[in-house]
């Protein structure tokens, strides 16, 4: 994977103020983050943790109170960055009186695409997201899943290098969720960078290379998913061909009865466990970076 930095935040902070300029909420505190080309990066956090604020700051929908966010080396408020960017909002904020074709054609025009290219791109995307039969129907007649799919199509209309997905699987049925995850992995295979935030931890675990966990506006954890989920102080042994009598004293039995050790390594926890542990720790010790549950020896998941 290339180490070229696509997204970078430096001490990015956001304070929401009221009409009189008084501080209401400190939504994000000095976030330092780097996302590299070609990776799928997940932003996790409970409600109000600052992940949507982060996405909005990256998109230029909000202005930072201090610090800065750079996309492709440009300031996030620079409109030029949007040429190489795609965004799928949490809800599909699309014009419901347009049909699928009109919607994609409209967004393609915003990228100043030539008519022939536009037509080709619109056709390809409608087929790609499986809306070929509903291309002439107004979006107000679409189901939630269909709306998400046309939303994704508009995010990809410019064949972007960086895609920001806000709750991409929200409201999708299991099949739709699977398709969305496959799509994200396909985008990764195409070398695109994806930043997503989601509440559905299993989805993040399935597709993300790296994650950042935010809580109360602070970065609590950042790293590769496989590393973060590894429980360092616990050894996991996977074995097969064992009798029922040997399972109670497994280590001795393996040696005594010549069982075959298939795997001996560190077990992993689930992302859900990691997430909950960090949130609990953050609430217990606010302002400090949370200790990794894997370092605390919290419940490892054993496949034995």
């Amino acid at each position, binding site marked *: 994977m290339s180490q070229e930095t696509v997204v970078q935040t430096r001490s990015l902070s956001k304070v929401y103020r009221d009409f009189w*300029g008084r501080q209401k909420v400190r939504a994000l505190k000095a976030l330092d983050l780097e996302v590299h080309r070609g990776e799928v990066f997940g932003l996790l956090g409970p409600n109000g943790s600052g992940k949507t604020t982060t996405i*909005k700051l990256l*998109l*230029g*929908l*909000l*202005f930072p109170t*201090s610090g800065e966010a750079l996309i492709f080396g440009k300031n996030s408020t*620079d*409109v*030029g960055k*949007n*040429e190489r*960017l795609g*965004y799928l*909002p949490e*809800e599909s*904020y*699309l*014009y419901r*009186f*347009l049909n699928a074709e009109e919607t994609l054609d*409209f*967004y393609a*025009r*915003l*990228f*100043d695409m030539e008519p022939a290219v536009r037509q080709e791109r619109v056709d390809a995307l409608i087929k790609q997201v499986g809306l070929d039969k509903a291309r002439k129907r107004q979006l107000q007649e679409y189901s939630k899943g269909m709306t998400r799919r046309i939303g994704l199509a*508009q995010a990809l209309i*410019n064949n972007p290098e960086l895609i920001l997905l806000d709750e991409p699987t929200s409201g999708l049925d299991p099949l739709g969720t699977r398709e969305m995850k496959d799509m994200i992995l396909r985008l990764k295979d195409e070398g695109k960078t994806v930043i997503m935030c989601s509440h559905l931890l299993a989805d993040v675990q399935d597709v993300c290379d790296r994650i950042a966990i935010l809580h109360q506006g602070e970065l609590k954890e950042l790293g590769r998913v496989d590393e973060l989920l590894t429980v360092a102080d616990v050894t996991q042994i996977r074995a097969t061909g064992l009798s029922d009598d040997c399972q109670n004293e497994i280590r001795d039995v393996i040696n005594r009865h010549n069982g075959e050790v298939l795997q001996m390594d560190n077990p992993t926890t689930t992302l859900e466990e990691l997430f909950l542990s960090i949130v609990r720790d953050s609430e217990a010790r606010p302002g400090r970076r949370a200790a990794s549950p894997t370092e605390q020896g919290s419940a490892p998941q054993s496949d034995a």
Partner: protein
Amino acid sequence: MVLEQDILPYLQWFLGSSDTLGALPRFLLVALGVALLGLLGGYAVAAARHGILRGGDLTYRTVSAGFRELFEMSPRRIGALAKLAIKEAWRRRVWVAFAVFIVILMFAGWFLKTDHQDPAKLYISFVLTATTYLVLGIALLLSAFSLPSDFKSKTIYTIVTKPVRSGEIILGRILGFTAIGTILLATMAICSYVFVVRSLDHTHDVELSTLKKIAGATGNEGRTSLDAYHRHFIELDVEGAENQALSNHGHYHPISRRGENIRVGQAENFIRARIPQWGTLRYLDRQGTEQARGISVGSEWTYRSFIEGRSQAAAIWTFENVKPPSYLDDPDIPDEDKGLPIGLIVRVFRTHKGTIGKAIGGSIQVRNPETLLTSEIDYFPAVDAKVDEQTIPRKLTNIADGSEIDLYEDVIQDGKLEVIVQCLEPGQYFGFARPDCYLRMPDGSPILNFVKVYLSIWVQMVIVIAIGVSASALLSGPVAMLLTVSFVLLGFFRDFFVGVAAGTEYGGGPVESLVRLITQQNVMSPLKAGGAEPIVQGIDFGLQGIMLSVAQVLPDFSAFSTVSFAAYGYEVPAERVFQDLTTCLAYIAGLAVVGYFLLRTREVAR
């Protein structure tokens, strides 16, 4: 027709002259003032939020990005956003305005009286006024609520995360709503024209029993039947091929005669587009001394001033560039058809009733401005406020020695001509303004004139749209609408607003007026506020300064309206149309820049 402000030649209006500031320098000055004010205000806000240095950096970056983005704007993106605005307007049932308009037209016939002295004026002013208010209303609603609706539904998120410049969003909205408004206006224009023409259409029969020989001449005279609340007197020559029922109620009818059959045709000339050539006006008082204005008869409206009857008082118009007709030397056209057509509107002010049913007599003469060679007095009956169309004959009599003089050879010199009008009855007065006497050029096309009037409505609509869209870039829908309504209302009463701001209106400034209103003091006496007069007037001084600043950018909606031109049957001068279009363009440019910075400096998300 009333024309309170002179229509200057376009270049003089645009660039100005030695004594007047042109539109372009005025625009640049106001733009500079607004830009400096915006810059200082923007920096103050940025500095308060981010500190002096970072505030300055943010202000610089915003302004420099604004200049850069000006050159990065894409017609395709603007077109896409305009198309979206059209679809949105259609979805918001903009066509309901048209349906309302049709309903108004359907029932208008019940209330518009055709027994009016000039029904065309009534009908035309009604349809044009109704169209103006409906279109301005719909422009207001569309423009003020569109962007706020996008913010509310968050659809704006998917726009601003594309490479769309804020200026493109503003311009796209303005162009889109202008396009849908133009379609609406064009449809209304066609319907209005058809409605006026069909409503005024009528004919008469000739009352044969009234026909009698004209004394001392060949041919017959008589009258038509009473239809549409009026009748016409007719004069038929013996041949009877090219007769007309005499003009009445602002129109005439062609009459064809085949033997004993006399047929009156459809009404003609209801809708006209007279093209006047105006001169300059000066007055003589009762002693015959030249004055800049006549006397006041007590009217608060000082547009016209008056001359006294049976005295040396006179109104003298001087015309320049008077050209003889192209057929002057055509021997086939008799001299009596080679006169100089003029139009005269007289406001009659009576200090006593006079003879009931009898018009006040007036006289008209023409004079050579160099040699002072003056024609014999020609008498005319002055009907109050009616356009009296006369022709000054080519062959005139010299008042000095009774010799025959030629209008074009002896009276008009170097293209200059004077027309002298006097009131002949003692105790009665004639009132005039400069546009009340003019040389009549051949009429223009009424349809083209209609188009010009609709262009002036279109200009008002576009300015309302531009104000609404720009305001809605920062404000919520209802607040943006209120601001736009305030601009429109103040724009319609701009002269009064400027008068209050400049302190030339009676009653003082806003606070003083409020105090007078509450304490029931009249506007003429000095203010009494229990010793607080300096405070009241001090606050007013500040407010009047702000009002004067606002007045610099306030569109003069009353001046945009050309409804009276069409209603009174005059062509809207092309200069006026181009001036209005240029003003409109200036407002679009200025407001688009304001809207750009308002949208650029606000956070799209919450």
